[in-house]
């Protein structure tokens, strides 16, 4: 083992001498091609000595954990091998330096440090080999070697990756968003910086082209200028970019980040536009493609660094801000770490003038104040007038009449003032319009007329005055009136109609005739009904077309039978609640036929028996409430039979009616079928409701059996 080490040390000695020789006579040599290849392996091999030195240091710290003898041998080997690799690496580095286009200063630094390193490693190995003991010399040498590795490695990395490669991410790159910056600075140079300057800089200067300064860039590289203004196709830079990637001259070289299509387009259009380095984007003619592309790329290239507004004041005390916050008043910074505050007030009933006084503590910081819909009076404006830094004030729909607006004229920073929906007058706006910073004034829905606005705008062009923005002279249709009642009307209940718009007249009929806006009865107050009726109602109002018609059936509670019984079973899917379904007073919903108020029949008719106590009044009519949804095959009954008598044996057919069927698809609704009866004191009734046996020819399922759905039967 010792012998091998000695042999290796001798080889290293030879290499070191060679290295020295090359160092001094470098200029006089020309390298054979195979050595050039060897030189190019330098970037790969250099990791060996680095790792070796680091490993050596680690070993020194862990020696206690190994058997002494084995450890000594092992660590010597590590040192020798490290030294060998350092020598070879340094040699190759010298070869590589011969062929590269590296900037002189950085290269010399790296070369020298590399050579020094290889000597240090050699001495270290020698010390270790001959002086068996570790002494100050050994450790000192070791520390210097470790330091040199760091230095040489770092200077090498700067050669390949560019100056300051390591710390770059920590530095904030500040893209030029300066409005005065030239288009070149804003959009062209950043591309070069991203994709080119890592090789074309002062230290590396491949092809003797330096792109990091404008002067050098314009001068071009060893082949001359990089572009011909106005002619991208003839410009070397563009030509190289368009060469196939496999071509040696293709730029950026294979393996380096390539230009994107967008970047190439930008460079081309810049050259086409004259390759000017001073003009701003806005100096270029508008249809110019460089201007268009450049503007677009500006928008996407940089993370928008918002110009955060700076305020001359510092933030308010956090505790006092917290105290000001109640459910009815929110006070908060505009954004994180901003000293500026916004205050909003909510819930009219909770607002008092003293609420504003409480803000005095932050009067310096208050920038936005929203008092929309609060009962603020002109008196309160005096307090607001002391909030010196206010920029935005919302007084929409407050109780001010404008007499106190003068107090606001002291607000030197106020930019936006909303007074919509207040009683301010044109005259009262006077002191506001001369305020230095006011930009917007919202006076929609006030006494300020369009004409006033035009006049004021002409006198005070700096302020945008906003009155009505949506003018529309079209006459529109009103919405339908609403029936407030739900379900069956009980004794004493009345029909309650409503329309949300004030000033609307509701006209209605109960006889099935369509109401009109002149002759039909006007709805004044809720009215009661004696029997189930069809209610038709419209809403009318000056300046509007009458609404579409509300058509609905108002069901009224009838005589209650003592018993009801289904004689035929409903379809299994729609069983309702069995016997009691038809007399429980619960109406179904038209949206949901599965709901238990409904009984559904398709294959057989509905037949139900109802029994009354002796002595109940005569029944003069029956109402059958049924649902209709033509699209879902749910039709009015085809025919209805009413049987009556004293009991089931005695019952006779007293009435049979056919029902008018729809002639096209129509809207689903619940309707009432009113069947007048010949007056008689029957105590037993049987009702048979037959579903449509064949759906009509216009229906998509023509010929199939229809459904009938009934939720309630009433007797009167």
């Amino acid at each position, binding site marked *: 083992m010792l012998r091998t080490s000695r042999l290796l040390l001798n080889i290293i000695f030879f290499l070191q001498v060679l290295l020295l020789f090359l160092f001094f006579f470098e200029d006089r040599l020309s390298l054979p091609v195979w050595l050039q290849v060897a030189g190019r392996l330098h970037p790969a091999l250099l990791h060996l000595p680095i790792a070796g030195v680091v490993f050596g240091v680690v070993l020194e710290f862990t020696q206690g954990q190994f058997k002494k003898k084995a450890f000594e041998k092992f660590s010597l080997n590590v040192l020798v091998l490290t030294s060998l690799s350092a020598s070879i690496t340094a040699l190759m580095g010298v070869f590589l330096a011969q062929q590269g286009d590296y900037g002189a200063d950085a290269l010399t630094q790296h070369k020298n440090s590399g050579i020094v390193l290889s000597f240090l490693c050699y001495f270290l190995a020698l010390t270790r080999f001959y002086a068996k003991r570790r002494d100050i010399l050994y450790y000192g040498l070791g520390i210097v070697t470790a330091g040199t590795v760091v230095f040489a490695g770092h200077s090498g990395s700067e050669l390949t990756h560019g100056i300051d490669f390591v710390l770059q991410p920590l530095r904030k790159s500040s893209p030029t968003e300066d409005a005065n910056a030239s288009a070149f600075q804003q959009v062209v140079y950043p591309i070069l910086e991203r994709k080119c300057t890592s090789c074309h800089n002062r230290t590396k200067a491949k092809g003797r082209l330096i792109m990091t300064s404008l002067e050098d860039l314009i001068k071009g590289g060893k082949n001359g200028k990089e572009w011909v203004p106005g002619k991208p196709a003839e410009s070397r830079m563009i030509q190289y970019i368009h060469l196939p990637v496999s071509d040696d001259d293709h730029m950026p070289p294979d393996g380096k980040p390539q230009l994107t299509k967008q970047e190439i387009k930008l460079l081309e259009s810049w050259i086409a536009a004259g390759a000017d380095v001073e003009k701003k984007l806005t100096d270029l003619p508008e249809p110019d493609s460089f201007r268009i592309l450049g503007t677009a790329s500006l928008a996407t290239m940089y993370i928008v660094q918002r110009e955060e507004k700076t305020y001359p004041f510092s933030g308010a005390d956090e505790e006092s801000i917290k105290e000001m916050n109640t459910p009815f008043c929110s006070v908060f910074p505009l*954004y*994180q770490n901003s000293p500026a505050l916004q205050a909003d007030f909510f819930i009219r009933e909770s607002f008092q003038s003293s609420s504003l006084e409480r803000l005095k503590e932050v009067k310096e910081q208050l920038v936005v104040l929203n008092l929309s*819909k609060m009962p603020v009076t002109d008196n309160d404006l005096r307090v607001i007038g002391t909030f010196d830094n206010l920029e935005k004030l919302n007084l929409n729909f407050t109780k001010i009449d404008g007499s106190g607006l003068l107090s606001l004229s002291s607000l030197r920073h106020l930019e936006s003032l909303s007074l919509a929906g207040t009683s301010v007058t044109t005259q009262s706006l006077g002191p506001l319009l001369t305020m230095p910073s006011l930009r917007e004034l919202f006076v929609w*829905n006030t006494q300020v007329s369009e004409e006033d606005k035009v006049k004021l705008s002409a006198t005070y062009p700096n302020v945008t005055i906003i009155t009505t923005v949506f003018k529309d002279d079209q006459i529109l249709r009103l*919405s339908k009136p609403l029936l407030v009642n739900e379900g069956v009307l009980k004794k004493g209940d009345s029909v309650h109609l409503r329309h949300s718009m004030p000033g609307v007249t509701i006209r209605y009929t109960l006889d099935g005739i369509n109401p009109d806006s002149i002759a039909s009865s006007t709805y004044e107050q809720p009215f009661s009904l004696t029997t189930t009726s069809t209610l038709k109602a419209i809403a009318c109002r000056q300046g509007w077309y009458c609404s579409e018609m509300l058509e609905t059936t108002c069901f009224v509670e009838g005589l209650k039978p003592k018993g009801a019984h289904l004689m035929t079973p409903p379809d299994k899917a729609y069983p309702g609640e069995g016997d009691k379904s038809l007399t429980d007073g619960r109406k179904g919903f038209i949206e949901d036929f599965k709901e238990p108020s409904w009984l559904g029949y398709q294959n057989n008719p509905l037949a139900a028996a109802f029994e009354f106590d002796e002595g109940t009044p005569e029944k003069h009519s029956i109402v059958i409430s049924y649902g209709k949804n033509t699209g879902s095959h749910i039709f009015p009954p085809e025919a209805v039979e009413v049987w009556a008598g004293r009991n089931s044996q005695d019952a006779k057919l007293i009435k049979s009616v056919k029902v008018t069927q729809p002639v096209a698809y129509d809207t689903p609704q619940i309707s009432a079928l009113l069947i007048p009866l010949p007056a008689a004191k029957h105590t037993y009734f049987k009702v048979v409701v037959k579903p449509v046996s064949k759906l009509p020819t216009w229906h998509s399922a023509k010929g199939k059996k229809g459904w009938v759905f009934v939720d309630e039967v009433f007797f009167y």
Partner: protein
Amino acid sequence: MDNEFIKNRMHVTRRHFLGKMSLGLGSVALGSLLIPDLFSGKDDTPFPVGLPHFAPKAKRIIYLFQNGAPSQLESFDYKPLLSKMRGEELPASIRMGQRLTGMTSGQKNFPLVGSHFKFQQYGKSGAWVSELFPNTAKIVDELCFIKSMHTEAINHDPALTFMQTGAQQGNRPSMGAWLSYGLGSENKNLPAFCVLLSRGRGNGQGVYSKLWTNGFLDSIHQGVQFSSSEERVLYLKDPNGRDREDSRKMLDHLAQLNELNYQEFGDPEIQTRIQQYEMAYRMQTAVPELTDLAQEPDHIIKMYGADCLTPGTYASNCLLARKLSEAGVRFVQLYHQGWDQHGNMVGEMPLQAQDVDRATAALIMDLKQRGLLDETLVIWGGEFGRTNYCQGDMSNNNYGRDHHPRCYTIWMAGGGVKPGIAYGESDEFGYNIIRDPVHVNDFHATVLHLMGLNHEQLNFKHLGRRYRLTDVAGKVVKGILA
């Protein structure tokens, strides 16, 4: 809000504590790998939740979701070539292997069909709008059209879920929940995230509560669905026989009991519940004030159309959305159903457009005249686009269109977006994007950006990793920022 978050953090369980200890050093090292800014002097403490990261352009959002995917070709993306080539086959070079839905995968040919409805340019911006949207046409100079939206899903449910939550599977927090989480509530008397539903007369697709879920965020961030009935928030009124005084007492005692429970278990959901009871109590005052539409002046009713007085219509939801937004509700989410025109485009599209056109335009202008448009972001659009070829039978006066994820149009207006522009462009066939594509993730990133939030920093740790609305993608679309 902050306070509660900090309090929650203080309640460290034994398991958490041990877990934290053992991970300690490793996570610092890993953290510095994963968080590039860790050593650049920036504050590495988790974001204080409840405030924008930087000065926001918009403070509130009203999202007019057109559920079912309205056809871009019959609304805002004018493609005359399709009418010229009517009946001709969609070239394979344009389709480029685009997958089909199950509804047209059996179709033998794909005949191109142009819009049945006429287009015209409007406003200073010269935006193309179809005759179905006469009122939207009047306000185009306020709108920022994005004509290059694209998504990954091809069917309603995943696409809708993707658009709303940033993931195609359910149970991730919805946009509104993220914003509530990130920005908190401006008005403590109302939920920060409200949901309003309406249904048009066209072929509809369902909406589900998973679209406005809080997902893994605290349930206080869940969207509160308003009813379409006269009583817009159900069960808000005190029951008969109990007055407000009683309610107050009941809530105070309940809060004490819940607080005891919280002391014992430390479950943040208990705190959420206490807060929700309190908010519901205050909503008893706040909500009637908002939902009483009769207080609106005549010209406002006229602006939105008389339908706005009928609860549950799109118009009434738009009006309510304005009132909620005006009252500081962070995110109002509307869904209008019925835009799924696989067939009968000619019959249904006008009805759908009629439902939304007037009220939408009114909403924009109403916000504007109150000085609120510049701080409110309004978004209009569906979950994907529709094909340029006909689905099913093409007759002389009717046709249908299938789902098309590769390209569609939405618009935004107000807070922080450039008015009067069209961003991105589709090809002459209206099938592929040829300029400035905007992916759904990009859309989300942009919306968050407008609200003053960095989409990469608004995150929540769940099941061992941090989740974002944009998950691992998304770029802010700078081109539309004002």
